[in-house]
Structures are given as structure tokens and as C-alpha cells.
């Protein structure tokens, strides 16, 4: 006899509120870091506005690096090569916090949601930075 198919509803996002809080935290940390990033060349393309954060998020999304230290090193390198100023200690702290929370977030959600949330974080950080530029 064929084995009956058992259907189970997957409830990965048990705590929606927690995921929401984590996401908001990451957005805030990355936006705070970007406040200290002054690009060498002024442009309004998304690529330019997002600076090292854009690169960091795409590396996380692709899974090229998983190690936290490697990701921080990658970001510092891009920052120092593209910004008018070197990365500050506060800026680095923000990035570290963001990466910690990203790690927590990854463990809470499935792959599909993870990718969606990364895109959401990306655009939210972009919006915050644009808001800062427009209101300056």
C-alpha cells in the first residue's frame, strides 16, 4: 500500500512580532552607519546611495561569505575605497550590531522569507538615506 501523504502546515514565522522588531533594528543600524558614509563621487543612483551596505547585502544574499568577520572586512574595504572619510568606530559598531541581528533573523525564518526580508531591508535603508539627502 502506498504511504498516505501527510500534509503539515509549516509555521516557521512563529513570532511575527520578533521578526518585525529584528528587521526594524537592522534597518536602523544600517541607516545609522550610512549617515557616516560620504561617497567620493556624488550621484543619485541606488548603487551609489547604498554604498557599502548595498554590496554587503548582496554578498549576504548570494551566500558568498558567511563569516561575520569576513563580512566586516569586506565592508571596511569598500568603505575606505569609496568614501571621502575612513570608517569610524561608531560606524563599525552599527555594522557589527546589524550583522548580529541579521544572524538572529536568519535563524528565525525560512529561505524564501529571508530573501524577501533582505530585499525589504535593502529598500528601507535606501529610503532612509534618500530621506536624509532630500531633507538636508
Amino acid at each position, binding site marked *: 500500500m502506498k504511504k498516505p501523504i501527510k500534509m503539515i502546515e509549516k509555521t516557521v514565522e512563529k513570532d511575527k512580532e520578533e521578526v518585525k522588531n529584528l528587521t526594524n533594528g537592522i534597518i536602523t543600524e544600517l541607516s545609522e552607519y550610512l549617515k557616516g558614509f560620504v561617497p567620493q563621487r556624488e550621484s543619485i543612483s541606488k548603487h551609489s546611495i547604498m554604498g557599502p551596505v548595498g554590496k554587503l547585502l548582496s554578498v549576504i544574499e548570494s551566500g558568498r561569505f558567511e563569516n561575520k568577520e569576513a563580512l566586516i572586512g569586506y565592508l571596511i574595504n569598500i568603505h575606505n575605497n569609496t568614501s571621502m572619510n575612513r570608517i569610524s568606530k561608531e560606524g563599525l559598531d552599527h555594522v557589527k550590531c546589524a550583522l548580529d541581528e541579521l544572524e538572529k533573523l536568519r535563524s528565525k525564518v525560512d529561505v524564501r522569507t529571508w530573501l524577501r526580508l533582505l530585499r525589504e531591508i535593502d*529598500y*528601507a*535603508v535606501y529610503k532612509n538615506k*534618500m530621506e536624509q*539627502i*532630500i531633507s538636508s
Partner: protein
Amino acid sequence: MTETPLIKKAIEIGLKLGWDAKPAKKDKRTSLLSHTINVMMIADKLLEAYKHFNIYDVSEKKKIILSALFIHDFSKADEDISKQFLEGKVKDLPKRLRDKGKVRQEVEECLKQLGLDNSEINEAVDYAVSMEYSGPSDLDEFLSSKPVNKKIERILRLSDKIASIRTLDEALKFADLVEPLKLTYHKVFVIRGFSTHLLHKALQKIFRENGWFPVISKPEGTLYIGKNDFELNKEKLLSYLNDEFKHFIESFSETDIGEAAFGSFTATPIKTPEFVFMSRETAESFWTYIASRKVISDSDVNLKDKNFEILKQKKPDLNEIDLEYYYKLYNSMRYILMMGVFIIKSAENINNQLSKEIKENLKNKGIDVDTLINNYPRYNSPFSDVIEIVDKFLSSLNMKNMKREDIVKKTLDIFRESTADAVDKVKPAITSLKKALESIIHEVIHPKINSFDWKDSYEAYLDGKIKGTPLCPLCGNKAEEVGIASLIGDGVESFNNFIAGGTAIGGENKIRVCCLCTFEAKLRSLVGNIDNFEVFYIIPQTLIASDFADVFWSIAAEKIRLGNSQTHSTPSIITELTSWARIILENKDEELVVKSLDEIRREIEESIKSNEKMRKKIEKTIKEKFFGDFEAFADELKDAKGYKVKNIDDVIRLIIEKPELMNYFDTSLMRHRITVMLANNYVVMLLENFGKKDDPETVKMLKKIFVATLISKMFLSSVVLSDIPLSLLTTIIPKGVVNTPVKLGLKNFLEDYMEDGWITFDRYDKLMKKLSALLILEERYLNTSVSRKSTLYELIKKSPGRILHEIIERTKSKSEGKISERWKSDLKSVLKLLKEVEK
């Protein structure tokens, strides 16, 4: 509505205090504002009734009484108290009204705005406190309070209780509070729309005649106060229903009726033959409508059409211009002849004598009726047959050498006159409509109609069980009639379990519906084609039993459709959605809501004063009922209602003061083109050509929800949206602001605002603001180079950052990559809108 300025002011204050977004009761089905206004209106009615029956007259205290009712639930407006109250923890509501604290200060401020002086304020507070004692927990408060007039206290308590009932029968529990008067009600069990409206009107008329005052109306019925018991007579109800039906039909122009009778040349040409044969005028207007169709008056010529090729082969001698001429002639004539056959066949179904008479008239005018009917299957194709038939027809009437326009006109005239003369002579009884009217009275469940036999009904049910009865998919009644697509909607040819198996769907094998659903569809077809309309059922939260309501809603409908075209201060709700979106985001909507309600009331008064139609209608009534003798009419009015009038101006003045007299003269004359139908406190609003033509379903639904929330706020109502145009109004107890079927794509977006399928009072304002922001953003998108059909739907799916990015990408070319000041300010407004989206 006699205290209109006070109620208007009360609505204004309530909106400012945000009472429209606060629940009045634990079940959250009514807003605090609606409940308060209801209680005030009910008290107004009760006071009027008590005065009328000479029980007692406290008119001089009316202002204080209504003001007391305005503040009676004031404490519930406070967020903390409201929360505790909803959890059942607060008991000392009366105390808060009297304590010299924050609540008392606010109460005094409101009462001052309502026009009360200091002593009146104290009195109003005492009344409000007296009606809130709920039991032993308030005993101390009760013993220390001032004694109030017990009669007034009873009215206050009764008003509050009546405003809180869920179903009409609950009101009968308050018999001891109403004594020596009594309460009763009428109730129906199905709410169909237009047809149920006629039933309600007939029932109300009977109750009024028997000395009962309507107190409140709900979609399913009306609650009355009065003295004399009476038995509802089936024959009388039927005759009044007939009158209502006649008035309803008369409120439409002949063209509307002619248009409603026509289906389509290719499917069912005459969808409602009853309307054609109703009177000489309707028969004539049907043919006038046929004459105006493009295929008859000036048919298009398609040179690639195979029929054109056939014509070329049949008449090789003709040049191109002549060919076009004959192509038009044959096309027009075949449809006229086809309609001629259909008129005879439809007449046969109504009355054999009528059909015979039409045939006789046609014969007398030289038409060979038998050939006309026998040729029927050949009118559609092949075209060579059509040419032959039309040629023979023209020769038989010696019209071969006439011009095309003259031939068409003459033929149409023959059919028009033959039909009209026959109708005039036979005056057929429209049995199918009579049957529908007879059936609909069985939908009254209270008071019981004596001749209705439950045994018959049960036996019919058993009979159906044995033989198998196809059920109407719309209402569950016995399905007896084949659904016509142009009446019921395109779905009649879809698969259904009641369709005969193993045969193709089409012809007679379509979904069958009951006679009442067909009747409802026929009534709605008078407004226009069912497929062009979006149906909104509006259930006013204010339980107006006002006689003004009929006129109120017809003017409100005009406003919804056109806005205020004279001052442009209020945009149209249908066509200017983004203008409304801006008003909402600027928080000016509350101001406009009050303005609209006030404007509507003023317009009603103006329209009555200057309405020539009203004057004519009064003259007509006097002519019909009193043979033009004004004095006889004045005597009757004095005897029946106790009013003295000297001339028609007096009558008009009286109607303004006592709007209930409108019923005496039939209020339907006040309507413009009916896009809205008010029934017993529900409104069927049909919005024609809503949204953009190519809007996808989800976008249309979002726009409908936006309009529904707006209507809900503007007119203090709940709105039920439906996907199926003829669906019954099943939700008679609203649980929120808007009830809508949720499209799958909108599920995630809407679930934050909904509970039990309803958008709730406490969340609808947020949704309205969010949709406003999205609508303005959509306009921005559409103004840019890229325009996509489902932009609004895409916007709700995207994060605000992504929307901003897309807007920047689309507008940056104009700024050549730099952030100019102008662009910056433009983007600032986008950010402001996005904030609303994020909330």
C-alpha cells in the same frame, strides 16, 4: 429631522471628537457617533408620537433632552475608559459625567456648542446621569442625584434601548416603558433590493393608515409606535404593492422603459416584454428605441464582411456606392423584421388576444404576417435569403422605389402603430409581474398574513424533494424561469448542478432562476444594463425612519456621482478619487462630511420649494382623486391629517414642514435618474462605469473599497460590496464599516484592517489614508512615461523604499542626475505620502 440644526451640530462635534472611529458597544458593530445620533433621532420621534397621541407634551424641553442624549455615552469616548468598558470593568459611567473633572469640563464645552446655557447644561447632565444608572453599583450616586422628570427619563431610557437592539423583535421587550402606547414592527426575511423596497413602502403605508408611527427602520423592517391593533390583510397589501409598483415604473421616462425592454439583437431581443406591453406609450417608446439603434439608423459597412461579398454576387450590376446603400438597407430591414416577429411571439406569451390584435393590425397595413413569421429562422443567415426576403417584403408594400431612410421609417411606423394600437385596445394584464408581486408578499414574516398557509408551503417542499426542484442559485427559491444573460448577468450559461446533464449549455438549458430574482432584475434593468454597474449596498448606521430619507439619498447619490458641480467644493466620489484622496490626507474630510450632509438637507428644501414637478404632481393627484376640486381635497386633508390648506402653495409649505405628507403625493417624483434606491434603511447604489475600463479586478476592488469607506464616513453608513450584482443583502446586522469579498491578491493587504469580513470602525480611517496615499502615488506613476494597468495593485505589494526608488528612477532624467530644489520638494511630498503608506 425636525431638530436638524441641533443634529447637524451634534454630528460636527462627534466627528471632531473622533466618535466615528470608536465603538459604542462591546460587539463593535456601531460607532459611538452613529449610536449617539440614533438615540437623539429616536427620542425626537418618540416625543412627536407622545404628543400626537396626547399622552404628554414635553416639546419645550426637546433641546435639553436631545442634548442630554448627545452626552449620555460621553465617558466611552475616553480611550482608557472605553477599553475598560469593552472589557466590562467600568461601572461608574454616570459619576464621571457629574464629577467636576476633565470629562465634565469637556461635556460642558460640547453642550455650550449645542447652544445650551448654564442652567440648561446642568439639567441636561442630570438627565444624562439619570439614564445611566445600571444597578446597585450606582446606588450611592443614585441617592445623591437630583430627581428628574420620570416621563422624560423613560423616553431617554427607551431611546437608548431601541437604538441598541439588534433585531426588531427585541424592541417588544420594552413594552412597560412605552405604556400606554405599544410597539410593533414589520419584517421581511429576504432583502433583494428594489423589489423589497416596494414591499416595505406598501407595508409602511398600511401601518401609517392604521395610526402607527415609524420609529426606526432597519433593512429588514420598521419598528412602529401606536395604539390600535389591526390585522394585516393580504388583498390590501397586494393592492398597495401594486400601487407602489406603478408609481415606481411611472418615475421612469418612457425611453428608460423602452430601453429596459430591449435585450440584444443577437441573443434575447426583448428581455422584458412586460415593459413593452404596459401601455401605449411604452410600446411606442420601445420601437423608438429600436429605431435609434445604430444597426437600424445607420449600420456600419464592413467591406470585408462575407455578407458584402454575397450581396456583390447577387447584384453584380451595382457599383460600390450602391452596394453600400443596399448593404445598409438589408441589414436594417432584417433586424426590424426580426423584431416584428419577436413582438408577436412575446405578445403570445403575455396574452393571446394581444398577439392576435397585433397580427390583425399588421395585416390591415398590408403585411403578410404568416410569411413574416415563417421566414423567421432565415433572418440571421445566409445573407442571400435575407436579400430575397427583404426584396419580397418591399415589393409587397410597394416600397421598392423609396429611399432607404423612408423605407426604414415607414416599416418602423407600421410596427409601432400596430403594437401600440393593440396594447391600447386589449390593455393586457401583465400576469408575470402580478405573479411576482403575489409571491413577494410571502416574504413578510411579521405581522403574519392570515391567508398564508404553512401547510401548503411544506407540501410544496416535500413535492420538490420527491420530484427534484431546481433551486434559484441567487436566493434558493423554486427556480422556474430560464435566466437571460442581459438581465441576470453573463453567468447564466455557466455550469451548474441544476442544469440538465449530458446536453450542451444554451437555449433553454441554462441556469434557471426564480420569478422574484427575475422580477428584481427587471426592475434594475430600468436603471441600465446590469453589466455596467457596480453594486453597493449601503446600510445607514443612523436608523432614520425619516420621511426625508428618500429624497436625502437621491440627492446624496447625485453628489456621489457628480460632486458639487456648482461650487466644485466637493469632488465627485466616482470620478475624482485622487481629489478625495488629497482631501483625506489634508484632514479636511470631516469638514466636508458635515458640509455635505448640511448641503444635502438644504438642497432638499430648495428642491421642494422650487419643484415644478411637485406642483404638477399635486395638481394631478387632486385632478385624479377629487376631479380637480381643490376644496374637496382640502376637506379630505383636514379630516385625514388635520391640516388646513387654502391653495397649492400652502400644500407645498406643509410638505416642507411635515415631510411625511410626501407619501400622500408619492415621493418618487423627487428622484432624478435613479442610480440609488432607498429602501427601508438600506440603499442599493448602482455606480455606472466605475473605475477605468481596463482596470484589473484587484485594482477595481481597491477603488471600490476606497469609495465605500468614503461613503461610509460621509453618510455614517456601513457598506456591503458584492461580486454578484443580483446577490441578496444577507448581512443585515453590520459588524463594521465595509463588508467586502477579498480577492486573493489583496488578502495580505486587507487582513490587518478586517475582522469577520468587515473593515472595522477603529481601523477604517487608517485604511482610507493609506489608500489615499496610494491613489495619489498611482497618479504620479501614471503621469510618468511608464504606465501599467495594475499600478495600484503593484503599489500595495511593494515596500515604500522600492516605490521611492522607482519614482526616482522615472523622474531623474528630468533633473539630469542632479538633485534640484524643485525635484527635492517634489520628492518630499512623495516621502510624506510614503509615510502614510507605512503607518
